[in-house]
């Protein structure tokens, strides 16, 4: 290897071992301490953990390409488990698909969702506020997006039960083929087939985002296959991450009673609380890119063909960007610039919908719940790339 400035520090830790998945932050701290870019022997990938370097990888989509796949294998060399999604493509193939999605999801179409998205949040939080304890994940975070989002896309009721296991497969596949991956892929064919079926034009209602995407086929912008893949991308990207986003926000707020009190006084700060929680407990923690040409990042030479593992979760807690209290939740912090939704070309198209869901559910909960606190240890979910909880018991007092 040609070394321009210095060799990457080699780390023999495994980011995908159980301990590091269940509690990633001590590991992320050690990773940042080893340098903005290091080499992970266990994964055979370069690890990018500094905010500045993560930002560079995300915005330089010519050097750090996506068509090699977001997992550790280069899917250009051996085919992946499904046709490549928009996330696994580069321009110019990516460009028409991104254009189709951006044309459909924009400030105006998202604004129109506030009305239909509010009543289910009211109903759910009314029920929960009447109980003195509940599970913030299974009783709320998992329920709400599944109530509102598939309707917004316009998929049939039949087969919705496959959405969660399908999302679990998609995201776990951005990590290695370990036992977590294998578990996620149990009955994989069945889940994938059910979701793909719901992405077909004839199975979508006429008003949702799905039908809007299919309109772009009539316009000649995208092919029928691309339309199917885009609806699939919306469904797989828009459920798990939002569930984790709601759950993670509540996991943080249950630990910060002053913040809850402050939010109760000023519920329109809900969206700031969500934003800061996304920074602190980013649902999408890491994924791979492939290096297209020899390059230098953070003073480290990275050869063409190498995989880099981009740690969004580490960048979002980098003290060089966020200060010495980067590991703390600070309602008054300006979290703008966090990379929880990515950055640049592949930045989450559904971001405004996710933010809307998270804000609405938190606002409605704030209205009805005076205090919230942990009622038992939260159970983190064992997941290759997402950060979230399986269970989060909370005790609440009604307002």
């Amino acid at each position, binding site marked *: 290897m040609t070394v321009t400035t210095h060799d990457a520090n080699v780390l023999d830790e495994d980011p995908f071992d159980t301990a590091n998945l269940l509690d990633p932050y001590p590991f992320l701290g050690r990773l940042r301490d080893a340098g903005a870019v290091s080499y992970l022997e266990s994964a055979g990938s370069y690890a990018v953990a500094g905010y500045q370097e993560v930002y560079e990888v995300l915005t330089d*989509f010519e050097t750090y390409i996506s068509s090699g796949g977001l997992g550790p294998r280069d899917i250009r060399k051996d085919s992946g488990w499904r046709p490549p999604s928009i996330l696994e493509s580069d321009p110019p193939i990516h460009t028409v698909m991104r254009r189709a999605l951006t044309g459909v999801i924009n400030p*105006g179409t998202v604004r129109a969702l506030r009305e239909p998205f509010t009543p289910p949040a009211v109903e759910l939080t009314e029920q929960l506020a009447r109980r003195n304890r509940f599970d913030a994940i299974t009783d709320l975070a998992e329920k709400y997006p599944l109530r509102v989002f598939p309707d917004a896309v316009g998929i049939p009721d039949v087969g919705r039960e496959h959405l969660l296991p399908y999302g679990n497969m998609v995201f776990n596949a951005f990590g290695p083929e370990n036992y977590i991956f294998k578990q996620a892929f149990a009955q994989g064919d069945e889940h994938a087939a059910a979701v793909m079926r719901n992405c077909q034009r004839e199975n979508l209602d006429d008003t949702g985002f799905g039908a809007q995407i299919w309109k772009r086929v009539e316009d000649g912008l995208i092919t029928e296959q691309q339309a199917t893949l885009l609806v699939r991308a919306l469904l797989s990207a828009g459920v798990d991450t939002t569930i984790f986003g709601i759950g993670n926000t509540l996991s943080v707020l249950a630990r910060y009673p002053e913040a809850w009190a402050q939010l109760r006084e000023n519920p329109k700060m809900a969206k700031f609380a969500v934003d800061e929680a996304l920074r602190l407990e980013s649902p999408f923690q890491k994924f791979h890119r492939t290096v297209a040409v020899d390059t230098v990042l953070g003073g480290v030479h990275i050869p063409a063909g190498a995989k880099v593992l981009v740690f969004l979760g580490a960048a979002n807690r980098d003290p060089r960007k966020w200060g010495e209290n980067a590991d703390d939740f600070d309602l008054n912090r300006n979290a*703008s610039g966090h990379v929880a939704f990515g950055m640049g070309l592949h930045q989450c198209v559904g971001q405004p919908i996710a933010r809307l869901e998270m804000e609405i559910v938190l606002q409605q909960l704030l209205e009805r719940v005076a205090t919230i606190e942990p009622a038992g240890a939260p159970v983190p979910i064992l997941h290759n790339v997402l950060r979230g909880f399986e269970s989060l018991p909370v005790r609440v007092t009604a307002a």
Partner: protein
Amino acid sequence: MSASAGATIDAVVDQVDVVADQVVSLVLRRADGQPFQPWQPGAHIDVHVGDGLIRQYSLCSSPDELDHLRIGVLHVPDSRGGSKAVHALLAGTPLTISEPRNNFPLRESRRYLYIAGGIGITPLIPMLEAAQAAGKEWTLIYGGRSRNTMAFAQQLEDLYGTDRIRIIAEDEAGRLDLDQILGMPRAHMLVYACGPGGLLGAVEERCMGWPPGALHTERFVASTLGAAAANAPFEVELARTGTTVTVPNDKTILEAVEEVGVRVLSSCRGGLCGTCETQIIAGEPEHRDAVLTQEDRDAGEIMLVCVSRAAAGCSRLVLDL
């Protein structure tokens, strides 16, 4: 019919040149012989063209030469008379103008793609100069009906060469092939486009496939107040608290509002991401963002407070904050 748009300057027309079919170039100097205030590429001035009409014209001279300003003006026969009045000006005529202001600033990046349609070339000329001086990678795609209608085309080609300057005259080569021009996004490339609404709409549509915030456009849409782009201080009433905040020239609405302790969710703070979208309850904004669609702008219900301001003549915005 028009409102005042801040301080005016007594200027004089120093030189008038016909630079293309239906296009004149005006060199303006201050009547008192003093230099103009420093300005950045993308800036424009108000020109008081008589009968209360105020029009904005982009500066196409060099920001390094402050002893004069140059504008290029297309004669638009079916307009409300602004360009006709400018075309009637002779050298030596006194003229009231404003100091340069900028709604179309050039942001720092590594690469630039400039797209001009017709007279939309004017604000881009100082941008090309800046990109060239900074050693950036850049290209200009300049489309027009025919070469004799395309102001400054030959000079730009002579100055920068045909590698950098691509002149596409419709009568020779057809219309700009935007699918080809914008089909392949480049990393760290910003697109600056100025020209007729139809062209900008088509560019916007294709740039939806680019990274968010890559595209920057300048539209010449007169506000319904018929007045110049705003640069005067204005007031913002925060409907939820009843507080009123004055937004001075050198601050954004976002900054001014944050200073009184009101929080607005924001991300890029540069009009690129849409996070700070705010409902307008009353008043007319001047949109300076790169996010809202023309439909959103026309509806006048929302604005991005990190960059956008009150329209000239609108002294008070009421926002849902």
